[in-house]
């Protein structure tokens, strides 16, 4: 456990001495802020219009702003996560520092967990940027807190899942660009799986649909915790980290 934390903090610090952390956080804040602006503006306009028509429709900040916005955050994360994970192992392989880690009295799984946790911490920081915007809604409105928390839980699980996949891809190459690119396309594929099968109800496409990362996110953004979704994300994380540890071990046998 001590070793996991050691590696975790080393990775986390590593992000902040390189431009990666700032770039990822700034990009996320920019895009999310833009989404926040449009969503809020639309809601306000809609509210005015409804008042002018004399309708007394109840309007919900949760439904109008927060839910689509946090769903959108998940999509942005899809693009940013490869930037976070691409260096994790590939850079160590390029620098030769992997030799230091693998010859130190520390287990492979501790290295992997440490790296994944470090990436996770940065991801939490990135999500933290969105909290600023959401907090504004709480200051001037009265949204329901619980669905927001559930949506964040979903985002964290989805992020953890993609980060684990990215960590795995990073162990397979010494080139960061390749690691980033492949992670991006794998993430994209997992996202698109839900599109292909949206109007198809056969058994096979149900399975494909289940594998899509985004379908499991939908429930969370509605504020619904379904054990099915949690199991999906946790098993994806576990499976990817397992693959990573296999891949690390094969480093020894192949190199």
């Amino acid at each position, binding site marked *: 456990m001590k070793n996991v934390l050691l590696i975790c903090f080393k990775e986390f610090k590593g992000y902040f001495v390189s431009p990666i952390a700032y770039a990822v956080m700034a990009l996320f804040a920019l895009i999310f802020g833009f989404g926040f602006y449009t969503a809020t503006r639309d809601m306000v306009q809609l509210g005015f219009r409804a008042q002018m028509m004399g309708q007394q429709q109840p309007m919900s900040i949760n439904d109008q702003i927060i839910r689509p916005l946090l769903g959108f955050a998940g999509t942005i994360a899809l693009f940013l996560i490869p930037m976070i994970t691409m260096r994790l192992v590939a850079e160590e392989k390029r*620098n030769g520092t992997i030799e230091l880690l693998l010859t*130190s009295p520390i287990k492979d799984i501790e290295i992997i967990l440490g790296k994944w946790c470090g990436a996770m911490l940065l991801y939490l920081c990135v999500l933290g940027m969105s909290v600023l915007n959401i907090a504004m809604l709480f200051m001037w409105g009265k949204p329901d807190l619980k669905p927001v928390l559930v949506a964040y839980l979903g985002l964290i699980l989805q992020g953890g899942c993609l980060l684990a996949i990215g960590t795995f891809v990073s162990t397979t190459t010494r080139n960061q660009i390749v690691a980033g690119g492949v992670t991006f396309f794998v993430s994209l594929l997992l996202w698109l799986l839900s599109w292909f099968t949206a109007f198809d109800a056969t058994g096979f496409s149900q399975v494909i649909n289940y594998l899509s990362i985004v379908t499991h996110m939908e429930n969370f953004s509605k504020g619904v915790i379904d054990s099915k979704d949690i199991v999906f994300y946790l098993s994806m994380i576990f499976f990817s980290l397992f693959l990573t540890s296999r891949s690390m071990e094969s480093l020894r046998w192949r190199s």
Partner: protein
Amino acid sequence: MRPNGNYHVCSDQGHNNMIKVEGLTKRYARTVAVDNISFEVEKGQIVGFLGPNGAGKTTTMRVLTCFLPPTSGTANVAGYDVLENPMEVKKRIGYLPETPPVYPEMEVNEYLRFTGRLKGISSAEIAKKVDEVVGRCALGDVRSKLIGKLSKGYRQRVGLAQAIIHNPDVLILDEPTSGLDPKQIIEIRELLKQLSGEHTIILSTHILTEVEQSCERVIIISQGKLVAIDSVANLTNRLRGSESVALEVEAADGSPNPGEVQQRLEQVSGVSRVVLKDSKNGRLAFEVESLQGRIIRSELARSVVQSGWNLSELRAVGLSLEDIFLELTSTEKKKAAPADAAAKEIEGGKK
């Protein structure tokens, strides 16, 4: 002269073997990197690991450090097998790979703290250990600099500091002096000498003087096979039973007659061969070889002085490790070694 094949039989069977390698073989997809190597290293020794590029030095070291698993055979470090007990082995090993494993974006201090903690030093002790190792490797000036901004020499020293921070029993250094300037090489050499008492050190290199200077024993491998393992002195003696002497003669009055001097030297008892190497400004340089097992230096000196010439230089020329190395690792190993060496020297003389 024993046949080359017998060298791997280890003569000194100490009980306190720090490293014990038996029948180690490492095969990659198509090539055999290390082929059935066996050797032992005693506690506190400095052993030089010698071989041309691609001989399998790094691979052997990587097996010892648990970075690579052996294809077959066993390797024991401090009594623990590298396959069965890698954690225990890793705790007792300090390893400096060929390129120092440093993070360019870290400061020296920070890096040493990280590696120290990684090697199991407790947080209470870490500051003390870092200070100690910074002092030892003379890193005081660069403590708070980014490693990425350091010169190659400093980076190498940071790498070495990382290897010794947890005070390991065994130090494995892959070409520790590559890329350093002569002053730094001497510093590293001094450091290794200091460390050798308490630590067992294996260092690989292809620089032969390196081994002559700092190692007690040499392991020579070539194309994955063990060629020789012995002390530096023994290895030199083994290949050369006779003594070779460089001699410079000067006449008191003008230049002496080369033929006359040569004839005179050949008459000294025990001399087998005299070669005129050089003559300029009235000085004649000879190389004189003795018969097997004869010591001829004092006789030569007396004979020169008695003939009325000045003896301006007289020194023993050992067969350098370079010659031995070339001989052992060259593919034509069948030839008798002394004859080979003699032939090489004659060639050298002609040049």
